[in-house]
């Protein structure tokens, strides 16, 4: 009987080729896939560099005459660009410290997005929460004059509170009225941006002697201490602490249990006696505070004054970071470090090879795209082993 079946053409034979499973632990497999994704993204970037490079364009002009010129021009363009990227990101203690500095707010912002994600909420509002945190932290930092340590602690707390309020509103509205968090966070981002722009024109926030919308730099006592003569500051350590805290909260605390349960199945959580609304509020308050912490890192860490650009695009990059990190604290830290390194390296790359910063943006997008599509990466790099429980899903959809 079995011989008969084998003789007959099986209906869908190719689909059932035995799965490549290795003995590797799943984190190693994930790492391999991510690494391959980065390689692929760099290849895509290389194409853009080649296309955009003047030397190459020139060489293409006489391709017939000296084709190898085009190739060598292309190779050297890519080589130089990526070399400067690597040097700018990792080539020594200073570049590394720069990468870590850039990563700092991204990690905190990413955690803010991740935590909400795990509770089934899509927090597009890290930007607004960061701004709210930065406003309060900066105010406490420059307007109050307090002894060391105390001043810094209070300024940080102010930042946390600012972010927590901005995030908490979202949770509260969702819990009370069902207002969709995506809408509310998008709108609150704009409100925060305009609020900041307005505050910066007021006497309270404007730097004395200046009419520009720029605040004083916070007191020395309110600044995160720096490591050596780099820009890297204590905020980075706080970011790591925050990651550990989020890990503890999610995996080792009763509140986190509740948050995760609500995120995975709100109905079952309600049936098990949890308050879904409360979970939303808690998650958004904590998420807001984390984004607020990122705000403090901007104004207390890299000793920036408060300006309308204080948030840059950290709030949005944070979403990508969180997604790349699959919503886990460790993943978010790693993704934040990667993005920080790309940002730092990107600056160096534009400096040396005049490659536009937008290329870094493209690289970041393509990396995440490939990392999120392991199936695609595997279909290109056929040697990659299959991951167990692949494709862990973060947020399922609008309905949680």
């Amino acid at each position, binding site marked *: 009987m079995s011989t008969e079946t084998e003789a007959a053409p099986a209906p869908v034979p190719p689909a059932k080729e035995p799965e490549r499973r290795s003995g590797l632990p799943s984190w190693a497999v994930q790492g391999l896939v991510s690494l391959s994704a980065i390689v692929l993204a760099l290849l895509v970037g290389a194409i853009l560099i080649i296309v955009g490079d003047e030397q190459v364009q020139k060489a293409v002009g006489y391709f*017939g*005459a000296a084709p190898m010129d085009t190739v060598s021009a292309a190779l050297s363009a890519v080589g130089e660009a990526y070399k400067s990227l690597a040097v700018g990101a990792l080539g020594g203690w200073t570049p590394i410290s720069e990468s870590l*500095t850039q990563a700092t707010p991204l990690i905190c912002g990413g955690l803010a997005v991740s935590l909400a994600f795990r509770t089934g909420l899509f927090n597009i509002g890290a930007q607004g929460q960061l701004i709210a945190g930065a406003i309060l932290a900066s105010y406490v930092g420059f307007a109050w004059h307090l002894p060391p340590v105390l001043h810094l602690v209070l300024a940080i707390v102010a930042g946390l509170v600012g972010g927590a309020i901005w995030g908490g509103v979202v949770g509260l509205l969702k819990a009370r009225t069902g207002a969709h968090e995506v809408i509310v966070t998008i709108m609150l981002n704009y409100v925060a941006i305009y609020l900041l722009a307005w505050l910066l024109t007021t006497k309270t926030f404007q730097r004395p002697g200046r009419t520009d919308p*720029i605040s004083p730099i916070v007191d020395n006592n309110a600044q995160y201490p720096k490591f050596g003569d780099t820009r890297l500051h204590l905020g980075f350590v706080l970011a790591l602490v925050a990651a550990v805290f989020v890990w503890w909260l999610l995996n080792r605390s009763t509140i986190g249990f509740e948050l995760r349960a609500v995120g995975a199945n709100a109905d079952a959580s309600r049936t098990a006696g949890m308050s879904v609304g409360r979970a939303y509020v808690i998650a958004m308050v904590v998420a807001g505070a984390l984004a607020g912490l990122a705000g403090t890192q*901007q104004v207390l860490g890299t000793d*920036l004054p408060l*300006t309308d650009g204080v948030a840059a695009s950290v709030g949005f990059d944070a979403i990508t970071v969180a997604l790349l990190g699959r919503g886990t604290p460790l993943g978010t830290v790693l993704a934040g470090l990667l993005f920080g390194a790309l940002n730092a390296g990107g*600056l160096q790359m534009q400096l040396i090879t*005049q490659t536009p*910063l937008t290329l870094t943006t493209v690289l970041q997008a393509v990396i995440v795209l490939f990392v999120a599509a392991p199936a695609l990466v595997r279909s290109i790099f056929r040697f990659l082993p299959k991951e167990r429980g692949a494709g862990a899903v973060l947020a399922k959809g609008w309905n949680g």
Partner: protein
Amino acid sequence: ACGSKPTEENAGGSANKDFKACMVSDSGGFDDKSFNQTSYKGLQDAVKEKGLTEVKAESKSDNDYPTNMTAMVSAKCNIIVSVGFKLEDATDKAAQANPSIKFAIVDSAPAKPIENVKPLAFNTAQSSFQAGYLAAAMSKSGKVGTFGGLKIPTVTIFMDGFAEGVRYYNTQKSKNVQVLGWDDAKQAGLFTGDFEDKAKGQNNAQNLITQGADVIFPVAGPSGLGGLQAAKASNGKVNAIWVDTDGCESAAEYCSVLLTSVAKGMDVAVKDAIVSVVDNKFDNTQFIGTLENGGTKLAPFHEFDSKIPADVKSELDQIKTDIISGKITVQSKVQPKAS
């Protein structure tokens, strides 16, 4: 096409190839059709004229200023020009740490003068005053309009001067031309809220036009380009005045609706600052671009040259003379003061 391989081209004046002239943009980037771009043009002009080496760094966020500044220092720049008030802190710090490098900063000035930092400021209220007068003179409807990107001094200084110029026209000619979109006494008016959203700028301009304005003065960077678009779409009914650069050059497609532009001579100032270092003539006194020194001026009228009455042109010249002589004082509170 496959031509033949060109021989190494020899750059023109490579006299000062080891002189590095450097520039750091603010987060607007060098293509902002506004002050970064104009300043960059100054850098390029200097480089071309003196055969220098150019190094530029764009900033994506405020976070990048110190980094870029440090990178410029380690690139052994001879002069570093930073663009915008937001780079002030980073510039001051770098300047104090590196006394051998010269610095210049556009649109800002250190609180206390620093030996090797040359601040470049521009009293665009003066030329905007002329622009306001011209707008009032050219308005048929008796209404002119302006709007800004954000309510910040580098924006409102234009709007202040513009409003004052219109008022001056009214007193001179006993007319009642109205300014829509800015009340310089109350310091309140129309803003898009950002410098990117061109459609929003256009809509703001359109709203001014429906209220009767037939000369538009957008002070909102790329978002303000929307204002020019609105004028262009009116098919000749509405004209506009551009800011920062000569619009007929930087936004040539709108030249047909541009009465003139309020040029903020950042390119010239930047170039001069760089050249002064090359020529060993650097000093740290604040440069304030005025009508007097040509650091700000009305750009040519281009296509409107024939349409603007001669007496208006001479009145504009007279205003220039009067402002220079102090006969007319521009009131705007945000004018840069000589330190």
